[in-house]
């Protein structure tokens, strides 16, 4: 079961075209988009697709609860923007994902925050690949891409060793910049992950994440 758990699209058309291009079994869309185009999606897609409502929120010390507020109705992803908020997130007793982007990478640091070992409920590391790749290809010289990818690889490797779920997602803002699951697989392959590890990240952990989140609702 292949799942792209977050597409950062803001238009309904992009989501519809994406479903036509890629044969995914589960799809994560921003909750606002789902409410807008739920009927269109339902009528235009002939096969069964699980569409998951997502909410990605930045977490700082001031607006910590914003990410958790709707975690029961939407699959929440929290992007910590300070070390304190990251530590608080690790202690939350809910199933959610810690969003790893170039902005939050300094705070998703297992040596400082125990996301992986001491968390009371399983936390998933949700890797937003689009911002990383976008920064790489547009050749801004002030960004040390090697360092970013080294850090990204280390976080994923540590998580896999400790059997913590890693969910790579595309998080592309529009269809023309989208990263399909094949692209994500190739990026992970180029980063040195084995076939087994890639299957875990692309097929197993997303389903496990959805399953855990649904079991929390009961």
């Amino acid at each position, binding site marked *: 079961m292949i799942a792209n758990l977050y597409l950062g699209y803001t238009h309904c058309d992009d989501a519809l075209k994406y479903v036509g291009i890629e044969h995914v079994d589960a799809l994560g869309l921003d909750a606002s988009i789902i409410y807008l185009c739920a009927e269109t999606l339902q009528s235009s897609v002939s096969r069964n697709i699980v569409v998951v409502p997502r909410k990605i929120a930045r977490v700082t010390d001031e607006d910590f609860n914003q990410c958790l507020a709707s975690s029961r109705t939407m699959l929440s992803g929290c992007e910590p923007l300070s070390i304190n908020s990251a530590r608080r997130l690790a202690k939350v007793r809910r199933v959610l994902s810690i969003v790893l982007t170039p902005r939050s990478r300094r705070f998703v640091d297992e040596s400082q925050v125990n996301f992986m070992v001491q968390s009371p409920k399983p936390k998933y590391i949700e890797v937003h690949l689009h911002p990383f790749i976008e920064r790489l*290809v*547009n050749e801004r010289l002030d960004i040390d891409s090697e360092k970013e990818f080294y850090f990204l690889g280390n976080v994923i490797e540590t998580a896999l060793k400790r059997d913590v779920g890693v969910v790579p997602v595309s998080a592309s803002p529009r269809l*023309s910049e989208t*990263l399909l699951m*094949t692209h994500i697989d*190739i*990026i992970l392959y180029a980063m040195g992950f084995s076939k087994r590890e890639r299957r875990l990240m692309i097929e197993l952990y997303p389903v496990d994440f959805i399953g855990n989140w649904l079991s929390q609702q009961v």
Partner: protein
Amino acid sequence: MELHYAVAWIALLVSVASLAISIAVLFRVYSYVRVLVEEFGKSLVAVKKHRRVKRYILVRFLCIDNQDYNTLENEIKNSVYSFLGPILKSRCSVDIISYRPESRRAIIRVRGEAVCVTYTLLALSIQHLRKNMRNCITIPVRTTGLISRLRRRYLKR
């Protein structure tokens, strides 16, 4: 008796000198042998310094504009080479050897070192994110060393 002592001393000196000479020569001979093994040994074991591989990648294009073969080939080659950079360009060769516009599928041949294939796949996957190249999304479908293995998927409508 004195003659015997003298002969014994001379024999001792000669043997010590020969020992010293043999030790000195031994190091030199060892270095010669090592150079010889490095020069010929590797080729005897048949490990080539530069192993050249050839891989065929079947790709599918999702293009905004309809493009002819030459335009598409130039765009894809430019894009891949710009990602690989001039140093890898000297070691990797990328060609579109076949293109079916009706199904938007093409076969790309990559020749060069093994790492070229990985880098070409990566370049094909992320090239549409560059700001001035947002015409086509390229989806690598399959990579193989034998072009015949791609036939069925390539001819698929």
